[in-house]
Protein backbone atom coordinates (compact mmCIF):
# COMPACT_ATOMS: atom_id res chain seq x y z
CA UNK A 1 0.00 0.00 0.00
CA UNK A 2 1.54 3.33 -0.94
CA UNK A 3 1.50 6.35 1.37
CA UNK A 4 -1.42 8.08 -0.36
CA UNK A 5 -3.63 4.96 -0.16
CA UNK A 6 -2.64 4.43 3.47
CA UNK A 7 -3.66 8.00 4.27
CA UNK A 8 -6.97 7.54 2.48
CA UNK A 9 -7.64 4.35 4.44
CA UNK A 10 -6.83 6.14 7.66
CA UNK A 11 -9.06 9.06 6.78
CA UNK A 12 -11.89 6.73 5.83
CA UNK A 13 -11.81 4.59 8.98
CA UNK A 14 -14.88 5.70 10.95
CA UNK A 15 -14.56 6.26 14.68
CA UNK A 16 -17.30 6.17 17.31
CA UNK A 17 -16.53 9.67 18.56
CA UNK A 18 -16.37 11.30 15.14
CA UNK A 19 -19.70 9.89 13.91
CA UNK A 20 -23.06 11.57 14.39
CA UNK A 21 -26.56 10.19 14.06
CA UNK A 22 -27.63 10.73 10.45
CA UNK A 23 -24.16 10.34 8.94
CA UNK A 24 -24.33 8.32 5.71
CA UNK A 25 -22.14 5.37 4.72
CA UNK A 26 -20.59 5.54 1.26
CA UNK A 27 -23.27 3.89 -0.94
CA UNK A 28 -22.55 0.72 -2.92
CA UNK A 29 -23.98 0.71 -6.46
CA UNK A 30 -24.36 -2.76 -8.01
CA UNK A 31 -24.65 -3.86 -11.64
CA UNK A 32 -28.09 -5.03 -12.87
CA UNK A 33 -29.11 -8.55 -11.77
CA UNK A 34 -28.68 -11.13 -14.55
CA UNK A 35 -29.30 -14.86 -14.79
CA UNK A 36 -25.53 -15.31 -14.61
CA UNK A 37 -25.45 -13.39 -11.31
CA UNK A 38 -28.05 -15.77 -9.89
CA UNK A 39 -26.39 -18.95 -11.20
CA UNK A 40 -22.99 -17.96 -9.85
CA UNK A 41 -24.45 -16.98 -6.50
CA UNK A 42 -26.35 -20.27 -6.19
CA UNK A 43 -23.13 -22.23 -6.66
CA UNK A 44 -20.96 -19.96 -4.53
CA UNK A 45 -23.39 -19.54 -1.64
CA UNK A 46 -24.54 -23.16 -1.45
CA UNK A 47 -28.22 -22.19 -1.72
CA UNK A 48 -29.33 -24.40 -4.60
CA UNK A 49 -33.06 -23.63 -4.38
CA UNK A 50 -34.01 -24.05 -8.08
CA UNK A 51 -36.59 -21.25 -8.00
CA UNK A 52 -33.68 -18.80 -8.47
CA UNK A 53 -31.97 -20.58 -11.35
CA UNK A 54 -34.56 -22.65 -13.24
CA UNK A 55 -37.27 -20.69 -15.07
CA UNK A 56 -39.50 -23.77 -15.40
CA UNK A 57 -39.54 -24.27 -11.63
CA UNK A 58 -40.09 -20.55 -11.01
CA UNK A 59 -43.10 -20.52 -13.38
CA UNK A 60 -44.54 -23.63 -11.75
CA UNK A 61 -44.40 -21.75 -8.47
CA UNK A 62 -46.40 -18.91 -10.02
CA UNK A 63 -43.53 -16.50 -10.58
CA UNK A 64 -43.02 -14.80 -13.96
CA UNK A 65 -39.35 -15.84 -14.01
CA UNK A 66 -36.41 -16.63 -11.78
CA UNK A 67 -35.68 -13.95 -9.20
CA UNK A 68 -32.77 -13.02 -7.00
CA UNK A 69 -31.86 -14.90 -3.86
CA UNK A 70 -32.56 -12.72 -0.83
CA UNK A 71 -29.14 -13.70 0.41
CA UNK A 72 -27.48 -12.22 -2.71
CA UNK A 73 -28.71 -8.78 -1.69
CA UNK A 74 -27.76 -9.64 1.88
CA UNK A 75 -24.21 -10.31 0.68
CA UNK A 76 -24.20 -6.92 -1.07
CA UNK A 77 -25.22 -5.30 2.23
CA UNK A 78 -22.35 -7.21 3.84
CA UNK A 79 -20.05 -5.56 1.31
CA UNK A 80 -21.52 -2.13 2.14
CA UNK A 81 -20.55 -2.71 5.77
CA UNK A 82 -17.11 -4.25 5.25
CA UNK A 83 -16.23 -1.58 2.68
CA UNK A 84 -16.78 0.88 5.54
CA UNK A 85 -15.38 -0.89 8.62
CA UNK A 86 -13.10 -3.90 9.15
CA UNK A 87 -15.19 -7.03 9.41
CA UNK A 88 -14.10 -7.91 12.97
CA UNK A 89 -16.06 -4.84 14.15
CA UNK A 90 -19.38 -6.34 13.02
CA UNK A 91 -21.43 -7.54 15.97
CA UNK A 92 -24.85 -8.13 14.44
CA UNK A 93 -26.74 -7.80 11.14
CA UNK A 94 -30.56 -7.95 11.02
CA UNK A 95 -32.31 -8.03 7.65
CA UNK A 96 -35.96 -7.97 6.62
CA UNK A 97 -36.83 -8.94 3.06
CA UNK A 98 -39.65 -6.63 2.04
CA UNK A 99 -39.76 -7.18 -1.73
CA UNK A 100 -38.52 -9.46 -4.45
CA UNK A 101 -35.47 -8.39 -6.45
CA UNK A 102 -36.06 -9.29 -10.10
CA UNK A 103 -33.84 -9.70 -13.16
CA UNK A 104 -32.76 -6.27 -14.42
CA UNK A 105 -33.02 -4.63 -11.03
CA UNK A 106 -30.06 -2.45 -10.24
CA UNK A 107 -29.57 -2.23 -6.51
CA UNK A 108 -27.94 0.47 -4.46
CA UNK A 109 -26.98 -0.34 -0.88
CA UNK A 110 -27.19 2.54 1.54
CA UNK A 111 -26.71 3.05 5.25
CA UNK A 112 -26.91 5.79 7.85
CA UNK A 113 -26.01 6.05 11.50
CA UNK A 114 -29.24 5.65 13.49
CA UNK A 115 -27.99 5.41 17.05
CA UNK A 116 -24.90 5.40 19.25
CA UNK A 117 -25.38 3.04 22.18
CA UNK A 118 -23.54 1.06 24.83
CA UNK A 119 -24.24 -2.64 25.11
CA UNK A 120 -22.33 -5.51 26.69
CA UNK A 121 -19.54 -3.17 27.75
CA UNK A 122 -18.95 -1.94 24.21
CA UNK A 123 -19.77 1.32 22.49
CA UNK A 124 -21.78 0.41 19.41
CA UNK A 125 -22.99 2.32 16.40
CA UNK A 126 -26.30 1.11 14.99
CA UNK A 127 -26.60 1.76 11.27
CA UNK A 128 -29.80 1.37 9.32
CA UNK A 129 -29.18 -0.26 5.96
CA UNK A 130 -31.25 -0.93 2.85
CA UNK A 131 -31.16 -2.07 -0.75
CA UNK A 132 -33.14 0.07 -3.21
CA UNK A 133 -33.80 -0.54 -6.92
CA UNK A 134 -33.32 2.01 -9.69
CA UNK A 135 -37.08 2.67 -9.37
CA UNK A 136 -36.76 3.68 -5.73
CA UNK A 137 -38.30 0.52 -4.25
CA UNK A 138 -36.72 -0.84 -1.08
CA UNK A 139 -36.16 -4.61 -1.15
CA UNK A 140 -34.29 -5.22 2.08
CA UNK A 141 -34.34 -3.05 5.17
CA UNK A 142 -32.36 -3.78 8.28
CA UNK A 143 -29.70 -2.66 10.65
CA UNK A 144 -26.26 -3.57 11.89
CA UNK A 145 -24.36 -3.10 15.13
CA UNK A 146 -20.74 -2.06 14.78
CA UNK A 147 -18.09 -1.91 17.51
CA UNK A 148 -15.83 0.74 16.04
CA UNK A 149 -13.47 0.73 19.04
CA UNK A 150 -12.74 -2.98 18.69
CA UNK A 151 -9.15 -3.81 17.92
CA UNK A 152 -8.28 -6.64 15.60
CA UNK A 153 -8.64 -10.09 17.09
CA UNK A 154 -10.40 -8.89 20.22
CA UNK A 155 -14.03 -9.67 20.78
CA UNK A 156 -16.00 -9.83 24.02
Amino acid sequence: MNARLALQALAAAPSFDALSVGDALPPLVLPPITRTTLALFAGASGDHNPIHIDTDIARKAGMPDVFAQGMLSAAYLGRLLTDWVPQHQLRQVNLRFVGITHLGHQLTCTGRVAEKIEQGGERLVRVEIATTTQYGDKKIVGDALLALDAQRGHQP
Partner: protein
Amino acid sequence: MIHKQHIGRVLPTSQADVEKGRLRFFAKATGETDPIYTDEAAARAAGYASLPVPPTFLFGLEMEKPDPFGWMGDIGMDLARILHGEQSFTYHQPVCAGDTLTFESRIEDIYDKKNGALSFVVKAVKVTDQRGVHVADLRSSIAHRNT
Protein backbone atom coordinates in the same frame (compact mmCIF):
# COMPACT_ATOMS: atom_id res chain seq x y z
CA MET B 1 -50.95 -24.08 8.22
CA ILE B 2 -47.77 -25.22 9.85
CA HIS B 3 -48.47 -26.91 13.15
CA LYS B 4 -47.09 -25.26 16.29
CA GLN B 5 -46.28 -28.72 17.67
CA HIS B 6 -42.99 -28.42 15.76
CA ILE B 7 -41.80 -25.52 17.95
CA GLY B 8 -38.67 -26.70 19.74
CA ARG B 9 -37.95 -29.39 17.18
CA VAL B 10 -34.22 -30.03 16.93
CA LEU B 11 -32.99 -30.42 13.35
CA PRO B 12 -30.09 -32.68 12.37
CA THR B 13 -26.72 -31.19 13.28
CA SER B 14 -24.42 -30.62 10.33
CA GLN B 15 -20.76 -29.82 9.78
CA ALA B 16 -19.01 -27.92 7.02
CA ASP B 17 -15.42 -27.06 6.17
CA VAL B 18 -14.66 -23.46 5.30
CA GLU B 19 -12.69 -23.74 2.05
CA LYS B 20 -10.55 -21.08 0.40
CA GLY B 21 -11.82 -21.94 -3.08
CA ARG B 22 -15.44 -21.50 -2.06
CA LEU B 23 -14.67 -18.17 -0.41
CA ARG B 24 -12.96 -16.95 -3.60
CA PHE B 25 -15.97 -18.12 -5.64
CA PHE B 26 -18.29 -16.29 -3.23
CA ALA B 27 -16.20 -13.12 -3.61
CA LYS B 28 -16.48 -13.41 -7.39
CA ALA B 29 -20.24 -14.03 -7.27
CA THR B 30 -20.85 -11.01 -5.05
CA GLY B 31 -18.46 -8.62 -6.82
CA GLU B 32 -16.15 -8.42 -3.81
CA THR B 33 -12.76 -6.97 -4.76
CA ASP B 34 -11.18 -6.39 -1.33
CA PRO B 35 -8.10 -8.67 -1.48
CA ILE B 36 -8.52 -9.88 2.13
CA TYR B 37 -11.37 -12.08 0.84
CA THR B 38 -9.33 -13.74 -1.92
CA ASP B 39 -5.62 -13.34 -1.16
CA GLU B 40 -4.33 -15.14 1.89
CA ALA B 41 -1.31 -12.83 2.30
CA ALA B 42 -3.65 -9.81 2.37
CA ALA B 43 -5.91 -11.56 4.87
CA ARG B 44 -2.97 -12.37 7.15
CA ALA B 45 -1.69 -8.79 6.90
CA ALA B 46 -5.14 -7.64 8.04
CA GLY B 47 -4.91 -9.88 11.12
CA TYR B 48 -6.92 -12.92 10.01
CA ALA B 49 -5.63 -16.50 10.27
CA SER B 50 -6.67 -17.05 6.63
CA LEU B 51 -9.36 -15.74 4.28
CA PRO B 52 -12.19 -14.47 6.51
CA VAL B 53 -15.75 -15.67 6.04
CA PRO B 54 -17.76 -12.66 4.79
CA PRO B 55 -20.70 -11.54 6.95
CA THR B 56 -23.52 -13.51 5.31
CA PHE B 57 -21.62 -16.57 4.03
CA LEU B 58 -22.54 -18.77 7.02
CA PHE B 59 -26.14 -18.90 5.80
CA GLY B 60 -25.21 -20.94 2.72
CA LEU B 61 -22.63 -23.02 4.54
CA GLU B 62 -25.36 -24.25 6.87
CA MET B 63 -27.05 -25.69 3.77
CA GLU B 64 -24.03 -27.89 2.97
CA LYS B 65 -25.78 -31.13 3.76
CA PRO B 66 -27.45 -33.87 1.76
CA ASP B 67 -31.03 -32.56 1.99
CA PRO B 68 -30.92 -28.95 3.19
CA PHE B 69 -34.64 -28.33 2.65
CA GLY B 70 -35.74 -31.73 3.99
CA TRP B 71 -36.79 -30.39 7.40
CA MET B 72 -39.27 -28.09 5.67
CA GLY B 73 -41.11 -31.01 4.10
CA ASP B 74 -41.00 -32.83 7.44
CA ILE B 75 -43.07 -30.10 9.08
CA GLY B 76 -45.43 -29.63 6.14
CA MET B 77 -43.80 -26.74 4.26
CA ASP B 78 -43.81 -26.66 0.45
CA LEU B 79 -40.60 -25.24 -1.06
CA ALA B 80 -42.59 -23.55 -3.84
CA ARG B 81 -44.59 -21.59 -1.25
CA ILE B 82 -41.82 -20.16 0.90
CA LEU B 83 -40.17 -16.79 1.02
CA HIS B 84 -37.30 -15.73 3.20
CA GLY B 85 -38.80 -13.12 5.54
CA GLU B 86 -36.01 -12.13 7.89
CA GLN B 87 -32.41 -13.08 8.53
CA SER B 88 -30.12 -12.16 11.41
CA PHE B 89 -26.48 -12.84 12.11
CA THR B 90 -24.76 -12.34 15.47
CA TYR B 91 -20.99 -12.59 15.41
CA HIS B 92 -18.95 -13.70 18.42
CA GLN B 93 -15.58 -14.64 16.91
CA PRO B 94 -14.07 -14.41 13.42
CA VAL B 95 -14.33 -17.48 11.18
CA CYS B 96 -11.69 -18.16 8.54
CA ALA B 97 -10.80 -20.64 5.83
CA GLY B 98 -9.54 -23.86 7.40
CA ASP B 99 -12.14 -23.85 10.15
CA THR B 100 -14.63 -26.70 10.48
CA LEU B 101 -18.00 -25.49 11.69
CA THR B 102 -20.83 -27.30 13.43
CA PHE B 103 -24.37 -26.03 12.90
CA GLU B 104 -26.97 -26.87 15.54
CA SER B 105 -30.46 -25.88 14.39
CA ARG B 106 -33.82 -25.83 16.06
CA ILE B 107 -37.24 -24.45 15.29
CA GLU B 108 -37.62 -21.57 17.67
CA ASP B 109 -41.11 -20.35 16.80
CA ILE B 110 -44.08 -20.85 14.48
CA TYR B 111 -46.88 -18.33 14.17
CA ASP B 112 -49.61 -17.33 11.73
CA LYS B 113 -50.58 -14.02 10.20
CA LYS B 114 -53.46 -12.80 8.04
CA ASN B 115 -55.97 -15.26 9.57
CA GLY B 116 -53.77 -18.22 8.80
CA ALA B 117 -53.04 -17.30 5.17
CA LEU B 118 -49.37 -17.06 6.10
CA SER B 119 -47.27 -19.06 8.54
CA PHE B 120 -43.89 -17.91 9.79
CA VAL B 121 -41.30 -20.45 10.87
CA VAL B 122 -38.31 -19.19 12.84
CA LYS B 123 -35.16 -21.29 12.79
CA ALA B 124 -32.22 -20.60 15.12
CA VAL B 125 -28.75 -21.92 14.34
CA LYS B 126 -25.82 -22.00 16.75
CA VAL B 127 -22.43 -22.16 15.03
CA THR B 128 -19.33 -23.49 16.77
CA ASP B 129 -15.86 -24.09 15.39
CA GLN B 130 -13.50 -27.09 15.64
CA ARG B 131 -12.26 -25.81 19.02
CA GLY B 132 -15.78 -25.74 20.38
CA VAL B 133 -15.84 -21.94 20.37
CA HIS B 134 -19.29 -20.45 19.81
CA VAL B 135 -18.55 -18.23 16.80
CA ALA B 136 -21.96 -17.05 15.56
CA ASP B 137 -25.73 -17.32 15.75
CA LEU B 138 -28.08 -17.26 12.78
CA ARG B 139 -31.81 -16.70 12.87
CA SER B 140 -34.09 -17.14 9.86
CA SER B 141 -37.76 -16.33 9.57
CA ILE B 142 -39.39 -18.11 6.65
CA ALA B 143 -42.84 -17.17 5.42
CA HIS B 144 -45.06 -19.93 4.03
CA ARG B 145 -48.17 -19.20 1.91
CA ASN B 146 -50.94 -21.53 3.13
CA THR B 147 -53.57 -20.54 0.57
